[in-house]
C-alpha cells in the first residue's frame, strides 16, 4: 500500500486531477478507455492517454458516521463498522497528508492542515469516541473547491442523505461517499421468529419467519445502495461500498485512486 502510493505523491507538480494539460503518455493496461486522447493517438501507431497536472488541493474534509448504528457487528470475528470507518478515515488522512493535502475531520473544529502534528490531533479526535445520534453529516460552510469524504453506513432515508450531500455540492464541494456495511446487513442471515430492534430508537419489528422476507429485504437493500450511487452520480461525486469482512486495503486504494485520478475529468 505504502509503496503504491509513495510512487506518485511527490508534490503538486505531477499528474493528477486538474484542469491543465500535463502530458501524453502511452496507454497502459488498466487505464480507462475513456482517458485515451484520440487526436493524439491518431497521429501515430501508439495509443496515448492525456494526463492533467494535479492541481493543488484546497483541503479535504473527512466525515465519519458516529451514530450508535455504527457501533455494531454481527459476529465477534468482524470489527465494528465504526472501528473500520475510523481506520479508513485515518489511513486516508495519512495518504492525503503525504500527498500534500490539507486534511481535517468534519465537525472536529480543527483547521485543515498537513503539518506534522495533524495526524496526531486527528487520532485524538478518533480516540475521544464522540457519539452523535444523527447518521448524517452536519451542514457546515466549507470553502469552495474543498473535497469532502463521507464514511458511514448511510442507512437513513435516501432523500435525507441527498439533502445533506446536495447542501455541500451546492457550494461546489466535491465529495465521495464510502458506505461501510456489515455482511449481515446485506445478507440478513437470520431464521425463525425474531424481533429486530433498531439502535437509534427506531420502531422494533417482529418477524415470525425471517427467512421468508429475505428476498424482499435484499431488494430493498440493493435499492438503498443503488439509490446512494445514483445520488453520487447526480452530484458528480464518487461512491463506493465496503463490507467489514473484506480487506480495508482495497477500499482505501479504490477511494484514493478515485480521489487522485478519476476525479475532475
Amino acid at each position, binding site marked *: 500500500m505504502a509503496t503504491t502510493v509513495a510512487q506518485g505523491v511527490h508534490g503538486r507538480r505531477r499528474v493528477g486531477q486538474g484542469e491543465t494539460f500535463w502530458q501524453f503518455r502511452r496507454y497502459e493496461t*488498466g487505464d480507462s478507455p475513456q482517458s485515451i486522447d484520440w487526436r493524439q493517438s491518431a497521429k501515430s501507431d501508439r495509443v496515448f492517454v492525456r494526463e492533467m497536472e494535479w492541481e493543488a488541493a484546497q483541503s479535504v474534509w473527512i466525515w465519519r458516521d458516529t451514530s450508535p448504528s455504527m457501533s455494531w457487528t454481527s459476529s465477534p470475528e468482524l470489527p465494528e463498522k465504526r472501528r473500520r470507518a475510523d481506520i479508513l478515515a485515518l489511513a486516508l488522512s495519512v495518504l492525503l497528508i503525504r500527498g500534500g493535502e490539507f486534511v481535517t475531520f468534519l465537525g472536529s473544529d480543527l483547521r485543515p492542515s498537513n503539518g506534522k502534528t495533524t495526524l496526531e490531533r486527528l487520532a485524538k479526535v478518533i480516540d475521544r469516541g464522540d457519539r452523535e445520534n444523527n447518521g448524517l453529516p452536519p451542514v457546515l460552510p466549507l470553502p469552495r473547491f474543498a473535497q469532502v469524504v463521507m464514511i458511514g453506513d448511510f442507512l437513513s432515508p435516501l432523500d435525507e442523505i441527498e439533502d445533506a450531500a446536495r447542501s455541500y455540492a451546492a457550494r461546489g464541494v466535491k465529495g465521495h461517499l464510502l458506505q461501510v456495511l456489515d455482511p449481515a446487513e446485506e445478507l440478513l442471515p437470520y431464521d425463525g421468529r425474531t424481533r429486530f430492534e433498531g439502535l437509534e430508537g427506531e*420502531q422494533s*419489528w417482529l*418477524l415470525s419467519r425471517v427467512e421468508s422476507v429475505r428476498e*424482499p429485504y435484499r431488494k430493498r437493500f440493493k435499492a438503498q445502495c443503488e439509490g446512494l450511487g445514483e445520488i453520487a452520480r447526480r452530484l458528480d461525486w464518487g461512491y463506493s461500498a465496503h463490507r467489514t469482512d473484506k480487506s480495508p486495503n482495497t477500499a482505501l486504494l479504490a477511494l484514493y485512486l478515485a480521489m487522485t485520478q478519476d476525479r475532475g475529468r
Partner: protein
Amino acid sequence: MLDLGLLAFTQPWLLATLIGLPLIWFLLRVTPPAPKTLAFPAVRLLLGLDPPEETPARTPLWLILLRMLIILLIIFGLAQPLINPAAQLPGNGPVVLVIDNGWAAAKNWDGKVNAMVEVIDRAEREDRAVVLLRTAKRSPESRADLSPLLPAGEARELAQGIQPHPWQVDRLAALETLESQDLEGSAYIVWLSDGLADADSNAFAERLQAFGDVTVLQDQAGALAKIVRKPGDDGLELVVPVERASSEGIENLTLTALAEGGTIVAREAVAFQSGDKTAELRLRLPTELRNRVTQLSLESESSAAATYLLDESSRRRPVGLVTAGSAQQSQPLLSEVYYLQRALEPYSEVRQGSIDELLARKLAVLALPDIGNLTTDESDRLGNWVESGGLLLRFAGPRMAADNDDDLLPVRLRGGDRILGGALTWDSPATLSDFAAGTPFAGLDIAGEVTVERQVLAEPSLELGEKTWARLSDGTPLITADPRDKGWVVLVHTTANTDWSNLALSGLFVDMLRRIVAVSQGVADGNANSIPLPPLEVMNGFGRLVSPGASVMPLPAATQPETADTPDTAAPAGGVAVDPNHPPGFYGEDAKQRIAHNLANHLPALEPLGVISGVEAASYSKSEEIDLKPWLLLAALILALADMLLSLFMRGLVRPQMPSAATAIAVSLGIASGGLLAGDARAQSLVDEGRALEATLETRLAFVLTGAERVDGISEAGLQGLTRILRRRTSVEAGAPLGVNIERDELAFFPLLYWPITTDQRSPSPDAVRKLNDYLNNGGTILFDLRDPSATARIQGQQSQTNLALQRLTSDVNIPSLEPVPPEHVLRKSFYLMQEFPGRYAGGNLWIETSESQANDGVARVIVGSNDWAGAWAITDLGRPILPVVPGKEAQREMAYRFGVNLVMYALTGNYKADQVHIPFILERLGQ
C-alpha cells in the same frame, strides 16, 4: 395395588392426576413460543415487511399432542404398572427366606440373589416383614445367621450383600435358631436351596412346614454343583476324578490346569456319560508343566469344591540324584549322572546335589551312582531316611567293587568284580534273561542287544532269589532289592554309564527306572513341621483365591489334612475339617512350603435334593412379571429431548442446514438414519460429478487451498487476473480458476497447480501424498510459491520458515532434483522471451526440475520460486490490481503476467517450443 388381570398398578392413586390433563392442554394451547430479540441497524429497511404466510401464533397441534403424550407417559410410569403381576403371597405373617449359602450355592448365585430380591419385592408390596436365615455358619461359634424381622427395604440391602461361603451348610442348626425366634402369624417360607441333599435335609423340610407354607427353589439337575476330587498319579498321567450330583444325561465340561499366577497350563474336555455320577480325566503333561500346576478347576463351575489345589505332595515323585563333586563334570557325557538324568527326566522330577542338600527336601527316590564310600554320618542319615519310606537306588562300579562293607545294600557282595567277555575270559558278554512275574519289571520287553560286560556279584544266600528283581541269562542277579521298614534299598549290579554295560544306552533302562520310581512311596505330605501353618491364600465362596481374612486360623500342626495314599474321601476321618476358621486354600509360610487344604476331600458323595413331600417346588427362573415404570419414564425422557430439539428448531436457535446437528438429532432420537445417510452419499457423489464437470468442461487454472483465507483469496484473484490476461493475449480461453483441496478433490483435471506455501499449512495425509505423486507422475505440473522474498537463493539448506514449511509439506512427495532455470530453458521462450521471472517481488531464483529427467515428455513437474506471482496477478472484479509490486512499477507486474503466460503455455504445450522453429527470430532479436 390395582389389579386388572394382565395389568396391575402399584400406585393407582397417581392415576387421579389424569384429571389435570385438560388444564395442561389449555395452558399449552395458549402459549406461543417466545421470539428471540436481535439488535439490527438496518431495521428501517425491514419495517413493513411481512412474511407471505402468517405463522400461527399458537403452538401447533402435533406439538401439543407430543407434550400431552409425555405427561401421560410420566403419570402412567409413576403409577408403576406391572404386566403379568404375580399372585399374592400365602400366609399373613412375615416372609422367611431360608438361604443355603454354602459352597454348593455359588453356582448361579446371581439367580439366587435375583430370586431373593423378587420375593422381597413382593413382600414389600404386601407390606410384610422379611426374615433372612442363612444356613452356612459365619463362624464355628455362631450357630447360624438369622436376621430379625426387617422391613423389605432393609432386607433387600442385606440380601444383596449375602455371599456364599466355601464350606458346608448346617441346616438343622439354622432351623433351631429360627425356632427360637418368635414369628407372628403364619409365615411364608421360601427355601433357596443349593439343590444338594444331606443327612438331615428331609427332616429340615418337614420341620420348616410347621411355620407355614414352604416353597423350595432349586436349580435344574444339570446346573447343580460339581466336584473335582483328589487327583491320582500313575507315573505318567494325572488322573483327575470329577463328580456330579445327578446321574442323568450327558454333560460336557472343561477342566483347566492353572499354574501359579493363573496361567493356563492345560485345558481338556471331560464328559459325564449318561447314568454316571463320576468321570475321569487323564491329563498327560510334560514334567516341567505338570509340576507347575497348582490348581485344577472346572470352567464355568464357580465353587470352592470345583477347584482342587495342588501342593508339593501331588507333584511327580521327586528323585534326588547325588552328584559327587566336580570330577565328574570334566567329562559330562560319560558320567553316570548324565545317563541317570536323561533316563529319569521323562517321568519324574530330578534334583541334583549332595546327599545333605537332597535330604533337606522331600524325596521319593534317591539315586546314588558309584561315588565310593559314604561317611558314617551320611550313611546314618540315609538309613533313617530309607526306614521312614525312602527308596535308595544304588549303582555298582569300580569303587563299590573295591570296597563293599556297606550296609546300605540289599545283598552282601563278594569282593571284586566279574568280567565277562574281556580279553582274558572265555565268556561272551551276558544278556538279560526275561523278567520274572512278581517283580516290578514284569511285562517289560527285553531288548536283545543289552549286554553286560562287568558286574559285582552277590554272596549266595537263601533270600537271594526273593531279593532279585532281574537276572542275567546265566542266572546271576543284575538288580536286587531289599525292603527296609517302610522303604527300599535297590542295587543295580552294574554301572549307570557305559563302562560296564550298554544297559544305560537302551530304552529299557528308562522303563526300568520308571518302574523302580513307581515302587517308591512318594512323598509323605501334611504339616510335618510340627508347627501351625498360617494361612497363605484362602478360597472365597466362588472358588477364587484371595488373601485370608482376620478370622482365618492357622492349620494345626502334626495333623495331616489329607492322607497321601489313602484317598478315603467318603469318610473324612482325621485332619482338620473345612469350616469358617479353616477355609480351603493354601497354608504355609511361603509358596515353596505350602500345604493345600481342599474342600473336596471332606465332602460326601453328592446327592440331589429331589422332590420333598408337602413342599411346593420351583426353580430359579425369572418371574413373568414385567415392571413398565423404567420403560415408560425412558420413553418420556426421549420424547422430552425430542421436544426440546424441536422447540429449539422452531425458534430458529438450531439451524436445520447444519448437517452435524441433523445427524446428532437423528442419532439421539434413535431414528434409523440409514435412509438419511444413503441420501447423503448420493448427494456427495452428485457433488463430485458436478465438480468434475465443472473442472473439465473448460480448461481451468487451479490453486491449492491453504486454509488461510487471505492467501486463498489472493490466489484466486491472482489466477483470475492471469486467466484474463491469457484470454486477452493468447488462444488459451480458460474458465474461472478453481481452488483445490488436496485432501478431498481430484487433481487429475488440472494441467497446472499453483501452490502458495504458508507456514501453518497442515501436512498432507498419506492419501493426499499418494494423489500428489500420481498427479506428478502422470503429467501434472506444480508451481510452489514460497511468497517470501528472503527465501530466495537456495532451497536446500537455508532454513527460513517458508523453506521449512515447504520441506515439511513435500517430505513424502516425490520431488525430482531441481536446478535454477537454465538460460536456454523452454520456460524462457514458450510465449514471451524472458530473462527474469519477477512476481510481486523481484530477484528470487526460480528452480525447476532438471532436464535430465525425461518424465512427462520433458515438461518439468515441479517449479519452485518465491516471488509471490499470485500477488502480482491479483486483480479485483473491476480489473484493478490489489497488491503493489516491489520494487518495480507496473512494468514489473507486466513481467509477472508474462511469466504466467509462459508458464501456462509451457504446461499446456509441453516442449514443442524447444524445437528449432524460433531460432531465426531469436537470432534476429539477438542482433546476429
